[in-house]
């Protein structure tokens, strides 16, 4: 109690750098995924791109505009969807919120009808539109949110964790919608997520952000190659063997003669040789570890301690 009273008269502040030294370029029509753990700076980056935040230094240009100037012409061509936040008005049917957006974005009535029909079709919104938003399930609400965000056919989509909290079927639905939308309208999509499945399904290009710095920018597959330090060897034995397989590497799984070993990347060749020489092997495959594992491994390191393995 005394300590609590004491704090009445003292104050402390701390400055936090959210994002530092991030540079990248995105071409029209690309779908780029931002990967990073919580607090990495993904959302901050999206907010800078949509004009909600302005950077302390550096340049941002989207569609030729400086986002934080918030020019109307700019705002009419972008959209930001945030998984945790709603722009739909809670107590009234979604269609009424759509009407409001129509007016705000000055969408001509005919075009509005057409877009609305297409979105209703793609997202299966039919019965949902007339129910008050608070009566919709989380997944239904998300679909309506996304539709509301796309009524004005923006050229650039910023999607911040769009599938968070949704069940697997709905996640897949939304993923395929985004892919289709990108295909149909050549819209540029920047997507943040911590579901690997989102990124794997949608993004050919991945930007990894960790502790506010850009760690990697490129292909998803190359990511694995660059950052993984281990490989997985799957061995199918011709017959049961009591030999201690731990001598070859970390045994991840073992059942019915099927062994999965985890070995350091640099020793893959030599260990494979030894296995083939020592054991009766029916089949042997060498694989990269699952992407999740690689990413996890990446995030577990402090940002400047990262080194790409040759």
């Amino acid at each position: 109690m005394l300590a609590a009273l004491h704090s009445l008269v003292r104050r402390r502040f701390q400055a936090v750098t959210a994002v530092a030294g991030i540079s990248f370029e995105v071409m029209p029509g690309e779908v780029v995924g931002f990967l990073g753990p919580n607090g990495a700076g993904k959302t901050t980056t999206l907010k800078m791109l949509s004009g909600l935040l302005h950077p302390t230094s550096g340049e941002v240009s989207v569609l030729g505009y400086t986002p934080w100037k918030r020019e109307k012409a700019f705002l009419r061509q972008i959209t930001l969807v945030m998984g945790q936040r709603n722009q739909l008005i809670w107590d009234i049917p979604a269609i009424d919120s759509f009407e409001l957006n129509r007016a705000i974005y000055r969408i001509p009535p005919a075009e509005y009808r057409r877009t609305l029909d297409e979105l209703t079709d793609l997202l299966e919104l039919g019965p949902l539109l007339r129910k008050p938003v608070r009566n919709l399930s989380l997944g239904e609400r998300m679909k309506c949110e996304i539709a509301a965000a796309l009524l004005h056919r923006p050229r650039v989509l910023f999607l911040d964790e769009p599938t968070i909290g949704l069940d697997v079927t709905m996640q897949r639905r939304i993923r395929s919608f985004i892919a289709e939308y990108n295909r149909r309208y050549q819209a540029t999509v920047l997507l943040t997520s911590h579901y690997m499945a989102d990124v794997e399904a949608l993004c050919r290009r991945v930007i990894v952000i960790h502790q506010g710095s850009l760690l990697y920018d490129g292909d998803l597959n190359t990511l694995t190659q660059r950052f993984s330090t281990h490989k997985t060897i799957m061995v199918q034995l011709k017959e049961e063997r009591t030999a201690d397989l731990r001598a070859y590497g970390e045994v991840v799984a073992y059942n019915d003669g099927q062994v999965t070993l985890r070995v350091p990347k640099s020793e893959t060749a030599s260990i494979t040789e030894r296995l083939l020489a020592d054991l009766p092997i029916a089949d042997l495959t060498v694989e990269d570890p699952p992407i999740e594992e690689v990413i996890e491994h990446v995030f577990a390191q402090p940002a400047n301690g990262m080194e790409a393995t040759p």
Partner: protein
Amino acid sequence: MTYLRLLWLFFRVGAMNELAYRANFFVQLFRSFLGLVTGLAGLAVVFSHTDTLGGWRPDELLALLGIYFLVGGLINLVIQPSMERLMEDVRRGTLDFTLTKPEDAQVLISAREVAIWKLVDLALGLGVLVVALVRLAAQVGLGQVLAFTLALLAGGAIVYSFWLILATVSFWFVRVENILVIFQSMYEAGRWPVGIYPPWLRITLTFLVPVAFATTVPAEALVGRLTVQTLLGAVGLALALLAVSRWFWTVGIRHYSGASA
């Protein structure tokens, strides 16, 4: 006596929680001070044009103002935050946590939340009251002080029961979130002696929304305007309302069902 122990516990927890937000103290101090200045200025403007208001003299109205802040502070200290918390729990279905505790639920919900900074209001109200008493010294004797204490206790019980009844209504009508605002809006009328209001308003402020019992009745007791009948009536009403609110509370609990996820 467990009740007192529980009350003290809640008070301590509430205090420790709030002390982390030192700025709130100054906010409250400023706010209360402004409220006080407003009240005093209002009285000053009125009494620049007259000597009495409905038979009440300036110092008597000063005492009323002090009681207004004092009782208001008490209400906002414990009753209001706890009842608001109760309504929120009902809305979110989290009342279950309280109902499974091994203490009487009504006691628990009644004093759970303590807005400790409202003690400032209480202190200011007390200060004003003391100043008024000093100026009224001649007409305030032991009898009045005793009557005042009794009236204050009765008033407190009546107000508490009223708030509890209002909050219990939320068991049935979950979406009337600001039902508690009814009392707070009407409490404004307690700054002035209820006797000056037209009959229909006076009755409303006495029997519908018991603001009169919170401020005017204790004030009347203090300055010697209270009849014994009224005092006994207040005490009787207090006891009756305590019983009614308790009964209504048990009905509400029975009706309560946790909101589905």
